[in-house]
């Protein structure tokens, strides 16, 4: 038993259209951390009916791509889009009776089915930025040819807001695509997981924070920080 077609479309539309506002926070608007996976996945989960699995997926993704800095002309992986798609798909599938009490396994499978899209999210981000860079020329042209006495500068300068629309549209389409693919692939992956291995699959989720911790440690400037990490980690051994 799976989700019916109308539920898939309704939930995907809801998550992609409302969730895309979180994606705007990433570069285009505010930058108030609404775009962090922890927040975005929880929002997507809440929209699809289960914020708890969204929160779990968000925590797993939170550190994963943090080592990629948006410095200079580099475009990092858009973890907001991944979190929205994974959180939405996970929450949508968690409502099915066969996946009750399998929250962690479901989160793992949804993440595995969404992460391959990371290269696609960079392409989408790059495309929007190139498109938005062209807006400057459009403003220049509008200012040169516009009727200067009737406030056309204001109209020209409003091209700035078109940049928001580009980001929003691209995010909504990308999230919808990724969520749909995850809703199709995740049940298949869950079907393929043999019953005997199922009880331990949930514990494999720990690999995501581990990858994140490694990425952040690799980015540290001072070697002293590694010693601090090793010291604290060794010290905590006594508390086990």
């Amino acid at each position: 038993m799976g989700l019916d077609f109308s539920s898939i479309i309704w939930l995907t539309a809801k998550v992609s259209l409302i969730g895309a506002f979180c994606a705007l926070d990433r570069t285009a608007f505010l930058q108030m951390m609404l775009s962090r996976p922890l927040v975005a996945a929880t929002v997507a989960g809440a929209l699809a009916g289960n914020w708890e699995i969204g929160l779990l997926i968000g925590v797993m993704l939170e550190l994963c791509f943090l080592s990629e800095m948006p410095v200079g002309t580099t475009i990092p992986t858009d973890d907001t889009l991944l979190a929205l798609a994974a959180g939405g798909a996970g929450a949508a599938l968690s409502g099915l009776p066969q996946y009750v009490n399998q929250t962690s396994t479901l989160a793992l499978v949804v993440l595995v089915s969404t992460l391959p899209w990371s290269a696609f999210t960079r392409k989408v981000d790059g495309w929007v930025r190139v498109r938005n860079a062209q807006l400057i020329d459009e403003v220049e042209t509008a200012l040169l040819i516009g009727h200067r006495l009737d406030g056309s500068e204001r109209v020209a300068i409003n091209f700035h807001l078109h940049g928001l629309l580009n980001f929003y549209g691209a995010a909504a389409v990308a999230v919808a695509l990724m969520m749909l693919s995850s809703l199709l692939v995740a049940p298949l992956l869950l079907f393929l997981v043999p019953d005997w291995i199922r009880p331990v699959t949930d514990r494999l989720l720990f690999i995501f924070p581990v990858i994140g911790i490694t990425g952040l440690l690799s980015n540290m400037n001072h070697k002293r920080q590694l010693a601090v990490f090793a010291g604290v980690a060794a010290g905590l051994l006594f508390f086990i």
Partner: protein
Amino acid sequence: MQCLGLAYAIYPLLKKLYGKNPLQLTHRTRCYLNCFNSNPYLAAGILGFLVHMESQGEAMGDQGLSLSSSLSALYGAVGDNFFWNGLKPMTSALAVMIFFWSPGLKALLFLLLFYNLVHICIRYTVYLYGVHRGIGVLEKIDSWRLPLVRDIMEYVTTVSLAVTAFLMVDYFNVKSRLGAGLFYLLILLLIAGLWWYKKTGCKGFFIKKSELI
């Protein structure tokens, strides 16, 4: 793209100053469409500085614009290092640590409240300093010693990552046949192994690839 945002932000002032002369208004607006690239948070200080200069006349506005290109590069570097390399990883690491310590919405609330409190205070302060004191905003930002604060934040991040690795044992090891100690060692071993793998120059590691515009 940031220059379009800068022009959009300063347009109300230009309209107020040159609204009666549309030709000049268009000319001044176009001046702000030149390349501008800085850190989005500290850009508020540069915007304040430009508002201060432009209010004193066109000649001063031009001086402000020529200075702003150096300022944007400087605060692009300082701001990126402080916010993207310091505050953001620290807040995220602490939020994840809080989640593994006590699963629930506390982690999410901490992430939103702490980060926003810091960056809104900084944005607001540098903007006001820029507007009222012009180039004096440099002294204000310099007095905060952001590179030093960033180093301290990096240590906080490191400690919270180590504690997160420890707390993960409790979270994931429920009903596991592995002993807690063994599981903890496995996690540390994985971190060390992946770190070494990354440092030795792996090419296909998915978290390292980035697109260039």
